[in-house]
């Protein structure tokens, strides 16, 4: 049976609440189901003490969650939009991420910050951003970005059990995506990428919603006889260079695609590491697909025009191979 991303997140949270009494949900309106309905019904089942509404103050509630985690709970905090993480940044960067280090390992902050990112349906410049690269710059934070409902189920559970601060970034465009869950499957480890589609000619490195675009691009390129390998990073920190290396050593060509702007993006970091660590394997410069350096427009037509997607990946792959752009 297939479930939407939202339903599967709810199930994962429900199961973790049941499994471990230390798990608590915090966030604006979470007791009422949250802005996207992920936590619907959980307050009724597990009590409002464990599924708690909070005031609208990201700074305060991130501090609350961090303190709870320091005291032994395993809070799952919802920051409604990643765009609002700016308000939580001081606590996340200067407190949450630092306790383990500054206490010489005596303190742990086993908390998950669930947040939702990306552009879909005209949410405009303040509710559509992909800001993950801000967080990969901070030692002490783990950054997870699932690419499908089934992936989100396993990765959310792994994140809750991981024992370190995890930023769990859900893409709003994936919320309605449906997928069947393999029951009793092993939970995916944090820090391990997933080979989604094997191929020989070009490696496409993606995460979050872009994985779906990459798979569609690979399908379309396969019709022209081009074999694309798709790697879903799953976690951006820690980065699974081993999987990347294995793939690049095979294909010798790389496209990194993300929805975030290219400037200072995750792709820049990965491209640099490939350039340094795998230089002798490269047959072409590492190519990056990402958003142009502009805010996300409100008008749906402009949003569509700006966002990178399947077509951009196809173009990048063909360009790497020295082929003319496909007719669209």
């Amino acid at each position, binding site marked *: 049976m297939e479930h939407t991303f939202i339903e599967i997140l709810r199930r994962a949270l429900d199961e973790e609440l049941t499994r471990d009494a230390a798990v608590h949900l915090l966030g604006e309106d979470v007791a009422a189901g949250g802005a996207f309905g992920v936590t619907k019904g959980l307050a009724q089942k597990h009590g409002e003490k464990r599924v708690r509404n909070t005031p609208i103050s990201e700074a305060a509630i991130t501090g609350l969650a961090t303190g709870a985690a320091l005291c032994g709970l395993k809070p799952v905090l919802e920051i409604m939009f990643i765009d609002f993480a700016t308000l939580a940044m001081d606590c996340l960067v200067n407190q949450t991420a630092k306790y383990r280090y500054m206490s010489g390992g005596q303190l742990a902050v086993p908390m998950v910050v669930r947040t939702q990112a990306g552009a879909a349906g005209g949410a405009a410049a303040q509710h559509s951003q992909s800001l993950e690269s801000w967080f990969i710059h901070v030692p002490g934070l783990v950054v997870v970005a699932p690419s499908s409902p089934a992936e989100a189920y396993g990765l959310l559970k792994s994140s809750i059990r991981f024992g370190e601060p995890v930023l769990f970034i859900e893409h709003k465009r994936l919320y309605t995506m449906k997928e069947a869950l393999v029951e009793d499957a092993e939970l995916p480890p944090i820090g391990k990428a997933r080979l989604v589609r094997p191929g020989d000619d070009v490696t496409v490195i993606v995460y979050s919603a872009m994985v779906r675009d990459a798979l569609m691009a690979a399908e379309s390129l396969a019709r022209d006889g081009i074999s694309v390998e798709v790697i879903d990073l799953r976690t951006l920190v820690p980065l699974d260079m081993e999987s990347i290396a294995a793939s690049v050593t095979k294909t*010798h060509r790389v496209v990194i695609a993300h929805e975030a702007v290219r400037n200072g993006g995750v792709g820049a970091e990965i491209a640099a590491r490939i350039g340094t660590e795998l*230089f*002798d*394997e*490269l*047959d*072409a410069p590492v190519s990056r697909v990402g958003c142009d350096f502009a805010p996300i427009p409100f008008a749906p037509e402009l949003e569509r025009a700006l966002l990178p997607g399947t077509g951009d990946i196809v173009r990048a792959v063909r360009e790497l191979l*020295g082929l003319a752009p496909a007719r669209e």
Partner: protein
Amino acid sequence: MSLVVQEIPKVGLVMEAVRVTRWLKNIGDSVSQGEPLVEVETEKSVVEIEATAAGRLTEILVQVGQEASVGDPIARIETGKTEPAAAEAPKSRTAEPARRSHLKAAVLESRASERIPSSPVARRLAAEHGLDLAGVTGSGPRGRVQLDDVKRALGSQAGSGPSAAASATPTLAPMRRALARAMTLSNATVPQFFVERAVEWTALHQVRKAFDAQSAQAPRLSVNDFLLQAVARVLIEFPALNATFSGEPDSPGARLVPASGAHIGLVVAVENGLLVPVIHDVEQLGLVELARRRTECVERALHGRLKREELDGATFSISNLGARGPDRFTAIINPPQSAILAVGRQRDCVVPRDKSIEVRPLSQLTLTVDHRVADGRLASEFLARLVEILEGREWRVD
């Protein structure tokens, strides 16, 4: 500001190719003149190449694993000084001590050669197969040579004409190539003759046994240590043979260059080839010290870690194929040396003694001599004296 090109210096006698094994500096690092810059594997050993100029390393032209030839540019160093013209460079070069004469530096006014646009993996594959990228047509953007282009070039090379089988098989490793070149040079340009004599080991074995009995800690002496000492003594006694031939035989500049001591090479079989580490000033060394140095340099030879001064300067080599060797054999001179002694295996032989016969341990010694350096009479006397020393009891132990 000026750019100095760092080139591969000639570090061995017949060295032509090296392979970069490790860069000791990164791009952007500052280097001082004479500071080790890069580690390269020559045909015979791993050596460090020193920077010819002080400044900042701005470009590495030969990557780890790639090959380069003597004189090839391998890096660019940007010197801090503002030099008005390239003409200033020779001045500072003449001020250089002579020992650096093997390190060449040239100031660039423009880039010396056009760089062929190529992808890293294409360059690597081409280097692995000794393929010159200049002859490969690049199909990538702006004519970049890519992996497929190199594969195609290698494929067509393998498939064209009578050389098909040859290019399909791997090319020679640098050491084998060096060996092939040295032996071809020797056989083609050095007129060689052979003299032969048997040597009896009875006395030597007694000396050796006595030594082993009284000094338990000292290194065990091998026959090679005795051979080295004996040859050294004879070389000093026969300076006419302790020399190397220099120049073309038909040119008025041809001469014999005498050696300043007894520097003797010892042929060591290593995996897929042989090396000839040289022990210097053997005439000054006792057997104990000789044994120590021999063990050391054989060990380093087996691990490809000989220093370049350990490969140069000999006039004479000893090749001893040991107990499993042939009864007798002739060796080919290792240029520019002028003689080589081939030692056959030791075996019990019947020898006449005082009107009867006895069984004694004997080896056949075959001396190969460069006829440009010495003649039959000198060679015979040399060998006779060598046998006399080897059969005697006068050894310098310490």
